[in-house]
């Protein structure tokens, strides 16, 4: 598979890199501390047409592809993983299901403002008792005249406090199990739909994560995505795509941890020479760099497979599983090689280590990725 970026990718990457260095990096430590959502930067990303990179221009997108979108998430995450997940959740989880499963009316009404960045998207699947076992949905949707009535709770929802449009999974027919789950488009401020408090997380602090609470929330019948019973399929397919975004986020974190370490070991002197002169550390650096590059290959391959139109679940799961483990491992080593300085917040590796961990957990834990990979190999 050819991983050479074409001219469009190269120039886009240059823009993402410059944006990340000039706009994102300067506030990364600050928003990690304040937990404040970087609303101004999201507006700037909208102006540069970064909020709908893989969607056709007729629906408000930039008209590019998954690989280009991956480059954006990677470069943003290198500067700040929070920015990476904001874009990833918005694009892959909020907008993509409408692009793939929405009818023309829904695309016009909801995909356009998402893809052109006027509105922000979020996705609600996880519940207190339905995590890895996503089929155990308790949220219900009952048809009542021209409306569905939603009841239930969704937790750990990325972008919840800032999103305008939510994709929400709910049980329309419990007797059918996973085939009784349906997907809905819910607008913020719909009566009966409220948000819980902002979660206090270990990392990606400025990402706004909350509970969605539905109490007799009535939404128009036409806001069902696809047909009744298609929800589980939509959710799984959406997560397949989302995983590529999270894998790209992990890759960005890993690359940054490596970059910081390469710089540090050449500056830090002990025993009269830079610590990078010691072979023990050189081998660590070599291992870190090789793993980051291997992760990049898997992530780009998953993106290219998706762009080719072929099935990409296995590739996405492999990319997410591997890149997230590499991110955690490399960030952990980066802290170790920075010694005491790595443990204090003045150096970015401390944040990278906290931010890396979530990539192994959300949008399917590492264990789920292994289930998906094994499932695609075994009957």
């Amino acid at each position, binding site marked *: 598979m050819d991983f050479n970026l074409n001219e*469009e990718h190269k*120039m886009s990457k240059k823009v993402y890199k410059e944006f990340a260095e000039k706009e994102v990096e300067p506030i990364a430590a600050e928003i990690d501390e304040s937990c404040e959502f970087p609303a101004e930067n999201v507006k700037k990303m909208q102006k540069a047409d970064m909020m709908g990179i893989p969607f056709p221009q007729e629906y408000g997108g930039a008209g590019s592809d998954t690989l280009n979108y991956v480059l954006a998430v990677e470069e943003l995450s290198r500067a700040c993983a929070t920015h990476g997940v904001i874009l990833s959740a918005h694009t892959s989880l909020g907008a993509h299901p409408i692009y793939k499963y929405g009818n023309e009316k829904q695309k016009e009404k909801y995909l356009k403002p998402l893809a052109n960045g006027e509105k922000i998207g979020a996705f609600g699947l996880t519940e207190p008792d339905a995590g890895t076992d996503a089929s155990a949905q308790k949220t219900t949707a009952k048809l009542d005249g021209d409306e569905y009535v939603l009841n239930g709770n969704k937790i750990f929802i990325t972008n919840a406090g800032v999103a305008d449009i939510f994709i929400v999974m709910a049980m329309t027919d419990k007797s059918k199990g996973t085939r009784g789950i349906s997907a809905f488009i819910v607008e913020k401020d719909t009566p009966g739909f409220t948000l819980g408090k902002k979660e206090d997380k270990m990392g990606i602090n400025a990402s706004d994560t909350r509970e969605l609470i539905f109490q007799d929330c009535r939404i128009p019948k036409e806001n069902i995505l696809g047909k009744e019973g298609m929800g589980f399929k939509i959710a799984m397919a959406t997560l397949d795509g989302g995983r590529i975004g999270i894998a790209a986020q992990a890759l960005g974190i890993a690359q940054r941890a490596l970059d910081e370490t390469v710089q540090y070991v050449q500056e830090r002197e002990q025993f009269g020479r830079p610590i990078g002169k010691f072979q023990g550390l050189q081998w660590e650096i070599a291992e870190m760099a090789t793993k980051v590059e291997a992760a990049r290959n898997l992530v780009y391959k998953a993106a290219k497979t998706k762009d080719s139109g072929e099935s990409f679940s296995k590739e996405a799961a492999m990319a997410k599983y591997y890149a997230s483990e590499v991110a955690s491992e490399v960030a952990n080593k980066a802290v170790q090689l920075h010694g005491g300085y790595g443990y204090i917040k003045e150096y970015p590796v401390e944040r990278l280590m906290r931010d890396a961990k979530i990539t192994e957990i959300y949008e399917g834990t590492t264990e789920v990725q292994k289930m998906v990979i094994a499932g695609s190999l075994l009957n």
Partner: protein
Amino acid sequence: MNIVVCVKQVPDTNEVKIDEEKGTLIREGVESIINPEDRIAVEEAVRLKEKFGGKVTVISMGPPQAENALIEAYAMGADEAILLSDRAFAGSDTWATAYTLAQGIKEIGDFDLIFCGRQAIDGDTAQVGPQVAENLNIPQITYVSNVEIEGKTVKAKRQLEDGYCILESELPLLLTVVDGLNEPRYPSIKRIVDAYNKEDTVKVWSIDDFEVDEDKLGLDASPTQVYDTFVPTHETKGEMLEGSAKEKVEKLVEKLKEEQVV
């Protein structure tokens, strides 16, 4: 309002290294960028177009890869892009460059305003803008840090080292702009996609495509020839004055008079 912007692709000098032996820039592996003040020129032109209508044409003289600088300008909102590229232009100094650009602009024809960056970060001459204006026989205002346009009148703030002056001129006019005039936007990803999906985003003109006097092109026609480049060394010498305090003061005053300081 139809606006032409001259841009130059330059190596990102933040990353550039110098080959000490040859005295030239090591360009391999160094990213090329739009000259920063040219980016400001593009931004100002696009803003004026958004306000008054019309179109923005960006023009550059350079090797084929300079196309990328023009595509970046296109992605910022320029409507048309022209690259003057021909072996005959190689080695041009500012005089030959300005002549070539001016001929290209004449071929474009219909313009009200021309923007240039004050100077390029690789050559630092600040000559091409003014020379283009001379070649086109239009007025120019250089070092511009603010632009206001009313009807056919342009009011520009000319930034000098120790102050500024406000100048007025009628269109058509050439302005060279300085850092601080505006904050250039990021290129739009959508327009980058468009640029590479269209075949003729950048029109490449060789000497056959516009009117030029071949005797005025390239290295041979350039009055400036580079004989040597070197990294300047700064040597500061101190001189100790001997004698009593009075003698030292007298000697010092003498020296200062010699140097015409007092």
